[in-house]
């Protein structure tokens, strides 16, 4: 995509300063716009994909629903309560997936790193992070996003929550935090892919495994697993602690209620770690002169 010629030849829509923050944002919008337009070209394929995503989320929830026909509760949590965890997690993950697919290990690791597409990215005078970010804006994820939202809505209708403006705002922050968190994981994975691509399937443990874990109340998991997902990769802060606070439930593990408010900070830290790993990988890639 030769954006430079585009910017020079068409003075009306020239991006004044591509290196500034606003310039970056305009460039991102333009790249993503082109992505979206090209994806929408294949209208049948697009609708088809959306239906597939829809079925996907229904199936996911059907599994939980089937479990609930056999078991009265999961770790003492009702269907609505688990649905809340699942809806928040699914919605955040789907949004992160739509935005951050450029970093996923198949797209980035295989195409960019292994096949050398990354060299082209480095040559352009545009922030490589931005290029990768804009490279895969997966419009078809809209299906999954809508279904995550639907499940969230259904779950909310099944439970009693003492809603206050603060709680509503906090729910939105939780979703935003989740998006930032999962994107951080994707970006971290892409950083790692500068060193190894073959073993990268294991990153699914963290991304998809994370999404699965955050769909269940965390206290049902055994000590070692919980420890990993509270301290090493702090999933517990993505949905569990925020939801505990929203539902006014005490933490069976004895954590204080203010842990919920730590959540946005934890998510940002994870994102930061991801970006750091990315930078580390890029510098390594450049210095080895591959």
């Amino acid at each position: 995509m030769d954006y430079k010629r585009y910017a020079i030849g068409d003075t009306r829509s020239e991006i004044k300063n591509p290196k500034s923050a606003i310039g970056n944002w305009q460039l991102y919008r333009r790249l993503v716009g082109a992505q979206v337009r090209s994806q929408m070209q294949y209208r049948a394929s697009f609708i088809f994909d959306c239906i597939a995503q829809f079925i996907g989320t229904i199936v996911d929830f059907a599994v939980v629903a089937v479990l609930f026909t056999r078991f009265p509760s999961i770790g003492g949590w009702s269907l609505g309560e688990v649905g809340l965890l699942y809806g928040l997690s699914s919605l955040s993950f789907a949004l992160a997936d739509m935005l951050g697919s450029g970093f996923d290990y198949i797209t980035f690791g295989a195409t960019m790193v292994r096949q050398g597409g990354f060299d082209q990215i480095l040559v352009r005078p545009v922030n490589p992070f931005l290029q990768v970010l804009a490279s895969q804006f997966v419009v078809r994820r809209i299906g999954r996003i809508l279904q995550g939202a639907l499940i969230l809505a259904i779950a909310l209708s099944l439970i009693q929550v003492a809603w206050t403006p603060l709680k509503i705002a906090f729910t939105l922050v939780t979703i935003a935090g989740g998006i930032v968190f999962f994107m951080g994981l994707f970006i971290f994975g892409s950083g790692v892919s500068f060193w190894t691509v073959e073993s990268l399937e294991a990153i699914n443990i963290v991304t998809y495994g994370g999404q699965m874990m955050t769909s269940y109340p965390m206290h049902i998991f055994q000590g070692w697993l919980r420890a990993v997902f509270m301290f090493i990769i702090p999933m517990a802060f993505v949905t569990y602690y925020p939801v505990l606070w929203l539902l006014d439930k005490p933490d069976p593990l004895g954590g204080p209620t203010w842990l919920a408010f730590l959540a946005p900070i934890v998510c940002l830290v994870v994102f930061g770690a991801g970006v750091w790993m990315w930078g580390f990988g890029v510098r390594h890639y450049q210095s080895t002169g591959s």
Partner: protein
Amino acid sequence: MRLYVELAKKSFQRQVAYRSATLAGFVTNLFFGALRAEVMIAVYGMQTSVAGYSLDDAITYTGLTQALIGATALWGWYDMIRSIKSGEVASDLSKPFDYYSFWLAQDVGRSIYQLLARGVTMMIAYALIFGISLPITIEQWALTLLSVAFAMLIGFAWRFLVSAVAFWTTDAVGFARMAYFLVLFPSGFLVPIAFMPDWLQALCRATPFPGVVDTPVTIYLGHTQGVEAIVLILIQAAWSVVLIALGRTVAEAGRRKLTIQGG
């Protein structure tokens, strides 16, 4: 016949080369298995038996389903689609192989390797971590193995049929992704079919997919024995025949289309 055995062997050897990928896949599968087992332990709580599944059965179920992932390529297989898209299919078709058997032989090699490297190893890991149920009689073992063989065959036949769509459309990958995904629920991979309400069970059994996961699992766990088990295996065989026949027909139509276009 010897040619096909060679193909299978080569395919097996190719798998051996990707050792770290296989290990990564194994670790991933094991992790998700542990996660699913934990969820089972949590939901069972004080209950000892649900829909005929004891807690041990349920844990073993998560291990078995994870173990079958590699062998049945449950998450998808795109080699054939890639070869059609790239035009490699033209040279494949001109080889002295029956096109269907060409792919089948290669898949046999691949899936036997996966069964050993990721399936058997998974069960061993599970036995060490959780303690699992094991088939008691030789008859049970034999029937389980036979059922697993058919599960792999049905899995392949479905993947071939789905991949053959690539003869007609450039977005075969998107279609295939959905078609492979459709297998997960009715196969009993995500949740045991026995857990589902009767109407949902009937819906699932109307598809070939229980034969990919649920049938070998119930036979292994001893939930279906003797004559019942043999009937289930016969159903697996019947579906295999249907899917293979469909696959061959569609591929033949595709081949003709390709030839007419001068491809």
